């Protein structure tokens, strides 16, 4: 008994220490909220200058002008002079799969194997990741968690960023399969003594052929009910039935055309282009084939010396101007960078895109691409109350200052491991 008591007191002691653990997820919305007076950026391109937004039981019940004569429900939040946005959505990220890049033990993003659609990100997603929680104070409230590496990396799921566990976090399970299209140019393996230059990839046709062989077999496999299960073929069936999307990472003009043509030919119903560095050269083709693009974030360097210095800055705008549905991802950088998602959109405004269009690229467009737009991505009646209030323009670093945030109406914490350390040390200095 004494031992047990001791254990309990130790446990209590640990719990009461300045917390380094994740913030406690908010409970289910129990009372209604009315946010009044803010500039509401609806995420669908519309703005309401002096708005009233009400939500209850996790759903938005009213979006309109604050002058509307309607009873305010529940807790009234005066947001005069502030801005309201739908929660931002990051795609193609390995958030929650990797905690510390350099520590192998914390890395769960890349499984062995070239074609492994049956590998599922969701079950490895760490809902208590400190990196995940650091997204929230910047307004990034949801994400598509995807495996990396190989040719077919695996299957992603969409999660929200305030949960006890992966199961609670899941918004859309196994939403899509991620394919890395081969490159027609390849860098020499300099670590093996080869020339480090990029040269034509002699194996390109073969590598493409391997993918084709895989999918053709998956199609054949799906036509019967085989006695022996092939997990990879089985996991691909959603692509042909239309329940899953195929996310194809490709950057070159030739690669993009090859990839899209290939997917159409095989009857893969929904394809999304990921990356798309040279997509701006073939926007008509992409439009014709109704391909949406999750384009690489603007905070990247141009890939060619002769490129415009600001090509990455304006690339999403070029695609959007051409009428494509565009979202922004930053899968090649460390996960912590994903909290800069709002500023990626801001960068596009620098390039001349309207703020509301830029906002769509991190809200309603990714929601549409991920197939969660019935519930998320914009502030509309009947949709999930996943939104936040910022002191100022959330797309600009100096004014992105969140005061409140809600996921499915749940009043979530904006504190993190980082804000706690900040407060702890400021307290130390201030008490001197």
């Amino acid at each position, binding site marked *: 008994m004494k031992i047990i008591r001791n254990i309990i007191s130790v446990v209590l002691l640990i719990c009461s220490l300045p917390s380094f653990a994740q913030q406690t997820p908010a409970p289910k919305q129990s009372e209604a909220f009315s946010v009044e007076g803010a500039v509401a950026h609806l995420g669908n391109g519309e703005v309401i200058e002096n708005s009233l937004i009400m939500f209850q039981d996790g759903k938005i019940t009213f979006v309109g002008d604050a002058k509307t004569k309607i009873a305010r429900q529940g807790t009234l939040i005066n947001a005069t002079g502030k801005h309201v946005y739908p929660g931002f959505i990051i795609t193609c990220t390995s958030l929650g799969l990797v905690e510390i*890049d350099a520590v192998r033990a914390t890395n769960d993003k890349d499984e062995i194997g070239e074609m492994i659609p049956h590998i599922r990100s969701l079950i490895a997603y760490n809902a208590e990741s400190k990196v995940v929680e650091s997204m929230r104070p910047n307004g990034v409230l949801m994400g598509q968690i995807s495996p990396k590496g190989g040719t077919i990396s695996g299957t992603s799921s969409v999660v929200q960023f305030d949960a006890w566990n992966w199961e609670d976090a899941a918004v859309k399970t196994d939403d899509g399969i991620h394919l890395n299209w081969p490159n027609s140019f390849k860098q020499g393996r300099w670590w093996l003594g080869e020339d480090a230059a990029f040269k034509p990839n002699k194996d390109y046709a073969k590598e493409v052929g391997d993918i084709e062989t895989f999918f053709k077999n998956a199609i054949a496999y799906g036509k019967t009910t085989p006695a022996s299960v092939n997990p990879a073929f089985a996991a691909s069936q959603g692509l042909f039935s239309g329940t899953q999307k195929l996310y194809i990472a490709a950057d070159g003009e030739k690669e993009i055309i090859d990839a899209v043509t290939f997917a159409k030919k095989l009857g893969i119903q929904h394809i999304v282009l990921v990356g798309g560095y040279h997509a701006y050269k073939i926007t008509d083709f992409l439009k014709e084939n109704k391909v949406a693009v999750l384009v690489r974030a603007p905070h990247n360097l141009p890939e060619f010396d002769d490129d415009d210095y600001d090509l990455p800055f304006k690339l999403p705008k070029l695609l959007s101007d051409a009428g494509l549905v565009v979202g922004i991802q930053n899968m090649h950088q460390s996960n912590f960078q994903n909290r800069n998602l709002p500023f990626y959109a801001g960068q596009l405004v620098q390039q001349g895109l309207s703020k509301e269009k830029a906002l769509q690229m991190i809200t309603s467009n990714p929601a549409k691409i991920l197939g969660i737009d019935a519930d998320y991505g914009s502030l509309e009646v009947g949709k999930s109350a996943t939104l936040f209030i910022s002191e100022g323009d959330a797309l600009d670093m100096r004014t992105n200052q969140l005061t409140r945030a809600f996921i499915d109406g749940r009043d979530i914490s904006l504190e993190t491991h980082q804000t706690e350390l900040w407060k702890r040390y400021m307290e130390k200095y201030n008490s001197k």
Partner: protein
Amino acid sequence: MRFLALATLWCSVSLFAQDYFPNNEGVKADNNNFTAFTNAKIYISPTKILDNGTLLIQNGKVVQAAKSVSIPKNTVIINLEGKYIYPSFIDIYSDFGVEKPKKASNGGRTAQYGPSREGFYWNDHIMSEKNALSSFSFDDKKAKELREAGFGVVNTHIQDGIVRGTGALITLNSNGTDNDRVLDDKSAQYLSFKKSVTSQQSYPTSLMGSMALLRQMYHDMDWYAKGNSTTKDRSLEALIAHKNLVQIFEAKDKGHILRADKIGDAFNIQYTILAGGNEFESINEVKATNASLIVPLNFPVAYDVSNPYQAEYVSLEDMRFWNQAPTNPKVLAEHGVTFSFTLHDLKETASFKSNLLKAIAYGLPKEKALAALTTVPAQILGKTNQIGSLEKGSLANFLITSGDIFEKETLLYENWVQGQQNIILDKNQKDIRGEYDLVAGENTYKLSISGEINKPKVEVKEGEDKLTAKINFDNQWVELSFNNKEGDKVYRMTAPVDPSTDLLTGRLWLPNGSESTFKATKTAPFDEKEKKADASNDDSSEVLALTYPNLGYGYKSKAQQETILFKNATVWTSEDAGILEATDVLVKNGKIAKIGKNLKASGATVVDATGKHLTAGIIDEHTHIAALAVNESGQNSSAEVTMEDVVNPEHIAIYRNLAGGVTTAQLLHGSANPIGGRSAILKLKWGVSADEMIYSNSPKFIKFALGENVKQSNWNSYSRFPQTRMGVEQMLINYFQRAKEYEAKKKSGQAFRYDEEMEVLVEILNGERFISCHSYVQSEINMLMKVAEKFNFKVNTFTHILEGYKVADKMKEHGVGASTFSDWWAYKYEVNDAIPYNAAIMQSQGVTVALNSDDAEMSRRLNQEAAKTVKYGGMTELEAWKMITINPAKLLHIDERVGSIKEGKDADLVLWNDHPLSVYAKAEKTLIDGTVYFDLEKDKQQREAIKAERSQLINLMLKEKGKGAATQEPQKNTDELFHCDSL
């Protein structure tokens, strides 16, 4: 013929049987006969030419070459009417006959820090004691190949290592022995920046390490020569012995030429330098070295750009290099640079002549071309009395040709080496080309012989029908065969060629096996038109203009200082004055001349800055752009290396930084070792040389590093001390203590070994050099401050310093500044507690805080990073802006010159179209020292120009391919982008 062969045999016997060698193969017999070559055009040297002269040789040497020569009676006379004689060529940079060094096996998984040898210098890559002849065996096959290209003498050496020892000067005389052939067994000493493949010793891992090693080696040589060493070092002894030899340095790049020359200058050595072919891009700097160059006669071939997607991978820079490189010899000649040619780096010796002709077609005078192959190499080696000309007493090394050797159709008949004849083509070969009536059997055919004299082509027609035909012409015999119309029967013929007649007649074998005679009567001479059509292929194509630097976004002419008046701007002063609304700023003579309202200046370019923001240029305290190397990781301390040695002024990242408003950056050594290398503080001037980018009178800095990188935690390396933070402290204390003792010894007047590393550490102890220390966690930050305090100096800057917020009070007390990331974390374990509030917390405790990039992407939008401190921790906008201007200027001790807008300071300015801390702001103009280095409008024009020039070059390359020229597959070469843990 037979007589000549016999003469050759006699010669060889007489020349190459040394007097004191016993002869058991017959009786001893000397041949002291003369050989005279008469009636030839003789190039005694490139500038001394006889039109109808005689060359007299005896015993392998030139007796005389003159218009009229009195020919002794015992002379064999060879009439060379219509032919030319040239001194044979010299390849001064060869590895002829030398065994290729064997690669050391990669034994252990961790690096080897100590040497593999004993009794030599501490570094395996210094091999001054090596000599080419120690692994030499005369390569007959290669000698023949070289003679066929016109070479008579090569200067060979072991092409491996940083110091490669001595080379040997050798004739390509296949008839003699090494006793005859070796003209000098220590003709020069060779050096390079490249490590030996024969040792795995890791130091130096970088270009700057190689440079430092060479400098230290010369210091050590001097120290050793004065008898200070108590041990024997055969490398240093050899180095001392070779001091007065010609020193040949392998640079292979215009920038490396300057690097090598700088080392030479420091030790009063003038290197002769192996060039890279891109010297025309920096011709004035190259010329200023006063070095003689050895230039590989090698030009890039066109890229195969027929696939447009693939063509996109080739940069304008690389396309241009293809276009401009053939002008390199011409440009060198025009600027009076002394240079010789070499076959080095040529894939095939056979391409030597076509490349030579190409250089001439691109403007190289023939006289210079000949000099580069004869007199210049002789002069470089100090052997003009022996080789390179046909002056009296020189070796009888010469070429007999059908005409001007620099014409395409000219044939090389003979290459004489040390008086030994080597026939390459029969010089008496008759020109049988022309039109003939051929009578064979019952029929008459039209026979047409064309092509080259020694390699004729043939066409046989029966009426209008072309028949399949073959011809071979060798040793004065012609062999001809052709098929009948149906192709099932062969007529075969052979005939000796009679020089006295144009008639070809000889034996004929008819298809039925019977034998007969044939007769071909010449009806018309060979038509020269075809020849001319061939020659036009060699015309040089249009050469495009150079830019500064010579790549896509380079400027047509170097940017110039201007007088500029900015009117009505919102001026962010980064001074106490704060933000001045509606203010004018006058820029003159590179300085901020005046700040005020309603300013006027005659002759100034007026910029309407209404609604715009003018700020000081951004300063990045921590960058690795514009560098050819970042880490010297071969030792745990590398204070002897300096980033100033490896500045790359042609890095596109410089331009992109300017487009982001960055004007100054500290190029830091990486974080591979606790004591890193010295910094280069740069002004990012686009289009100037590396030296012009480095701050004049630059404050002295050095990079230190702590934590995971120096412990080598994140890769498999377990052998280098230190592996823990505990070890780092002890290592630092040890080095500083040794530096203290070193200085004491130096000051005492005792003999001491000059140690570049210790000299740098002494500067730190004396407060003359500042530390910028890569650091993350609080324990190590605190540790370094305590170590510094123990040795009575202050740490200047902690860079990265992501846990600085935990010890901000201690940092303030020590007086150290901080240069940090705005929001980076989670990339390694030691940044687990990194928080974006770091900058604001340190600032609140009175620490001078700057924000840096360590990243080529982030550095071009540091204004946005500064804005994040407003979000994280609530900095005021004025203070946030200072974190990328005046604060880093203070940390770098350049705040008297840059970092704020103040009258008298350098005009390093940025004009923004919006609030500079906003993500919506774009730099419109970036000035350094009053010169506009980035202009948004100009940038638009550059883009168009790049498009047009790419298309022009692609067309030229397609044309080249169309002509049947060799091509290479498209490729993308990229400058490396470094972070501080790049190895």
